[in-house]
């Protein structure tokens, strides 16, 4: 029953997010601040992870291609497919659930504990709109991060491939251009937008409706990471089934 209650409360929060909007002059600043906190500040870690995991994907692929009949272009092809279809949208989103999700839950949760949310509500402000909506708008720029992850993942793969001596640069470039299906990009970005919505709302829910003190803020951050990850994995499966099969 408590799960059903939580799910209902989550959807009511989403509805409330669009009600009684905060003054635009105030909201504008909040959106820019959240773009800085959630998007700009994530570029570094995402770039780092994407570049090196792209390299690892390439090395693993190359090392498993022992049959001399398999063309070397397959290394680039496999790296591109892995990075675009799964690694960038899904794997990075799980990492973001930890980084951005924990940040959102702990910042909103701390505001709950220190009565700052009560202060907003007493003033007659729709605290859900004030706190969650700017994060939702900021994370609509999330595909920008995923695009960077895709680019750097393939670039990291290229560096690993060439410097590791697994295939030539020409083979790798030919591989990443091989049988390119533009619909796969659409699929990846549809997933990205859905995950961005989850990244903005699930951690906000866990922060906004938490009760207790500082210890519970930590627990709420962990719970929010778990549930955001679960939701991402489940929706990843459903969207893949719907769009690719």
């Amino acid at each position, binding site marked *: 029953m408590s799960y059903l209650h939580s799910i209902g409360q989550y959807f009511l929060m989403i509805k409330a997010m669009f009600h*009684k909007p*905060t*003054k635009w*002059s*105030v909201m504008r600043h909040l959106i820019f*601040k959240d773009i800085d906190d959630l998007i700009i500040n994530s570029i570094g870690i995402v770039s780092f992870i994407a570049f090196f995991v792209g390299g690892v994907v390439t090395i693993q692929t190359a090392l498993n291609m022992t049959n001399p009949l398999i063309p070397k272009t397959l290394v680039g092809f496999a790296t591109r497919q892995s990075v675009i279809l799964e690694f960038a949208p899904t794997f990075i989103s799980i990492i973001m659930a930890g980084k951005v999700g924990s940040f959102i839950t702990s910042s909103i949760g*701390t505001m709950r504990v*220190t*009565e*700052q949310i*009560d*202060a907003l*509500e*007493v*003033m*007659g*402000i729709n605290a859900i709109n004030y706190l969650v909506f700017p994060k939702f708008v900021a994370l609509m720029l999330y595909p920008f991060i995923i695009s960077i992850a895709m680019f750097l993942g393939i670039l990291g793969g290229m560096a690993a491939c060439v410097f590791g001596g697994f295939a030539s640069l020409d083979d790798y470039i030919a591989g990443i251009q091989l049988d390119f299906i533009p619909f796969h990009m659409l699929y990846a970005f549809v997933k990205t937008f859905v995950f961005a919505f989850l990244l903005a709302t699930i951690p906000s829910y866990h922060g906004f409706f938490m009760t207790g003190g500082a210890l519970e803020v930590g627990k709420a951050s962990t719970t929010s990471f778990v549930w955001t990850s679960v939701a991402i994995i489940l929706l990843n499966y459903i969207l893949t089934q719907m769009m690719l099969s």
Partner: protein
Amino acid sequence: MIEVNDIHKSFGDSKILKGITTVFDKGKTNLIIGQSGSGKTVFLKTLLGLYTPEQGSIVYDGRNYSDLSSDEKSDLRAEMGMVFQGSALFDSMTIAENVMFPLRMFTKQSKSEMQDRVDLVLKRVNLGDAHKKLPSEASGGMQKRVAIARAIVNKPKYLFCDEPNSGLDPRTATVIDNLIQEITQEYDITTIINTHDMNSVMEIGEKIVFLKDGLKEWEGSNKNIFKTDNEAVTGFVYSSDLFKRVQKMYLEEDL
């Protein structure tokens, strides 16, 4: 003036408020006192509209809260100022930005007009030079004064304070008490203070409502709280030797 009629509030099976009826007068510092767990905070949050009572009504200068539309409730809330126990200042904003926040949200004033108002109010609470500090850089007493400044900046009709001097040294606590009383008289607002600090009761308790187990046990003023023979009130008031001596002094004065 706020009229409270037969307010009931429960959380699950636990009944917190069991039918409180009282009136909080305009231009006076009204105190809600009682032991921990007596329902003070729930009562205050119900008066603020943060909790919806299951039964009873709260009338703010002729406006029954439960009869108001959503927009009217928002307008009414904009007339309220609140000083929270932990000050509840926004961490990411400077002191001046915290105080300016209600003006930015609810008025169409120009930036210079808002700045002038913030300067005035911060000077009123003796914080004229603290504009650029962050709340984390301010002492507990300063944070409370910023919270008072934020609460009064938009000229509220109702000021609510939840244990405004908790965690403060006695001298700073007296400064805060006096400041709230001065502001109440100066702006002619209805002020309700939730406290269990007997010094506040003595200093500024123009009207006192004593709660026990979710019920109003007694009401009166600081002038007659020492003369009451209500056992619950005397048990609360004379829990320290100091106030036993104060009672003796009062009784001797009367004789």
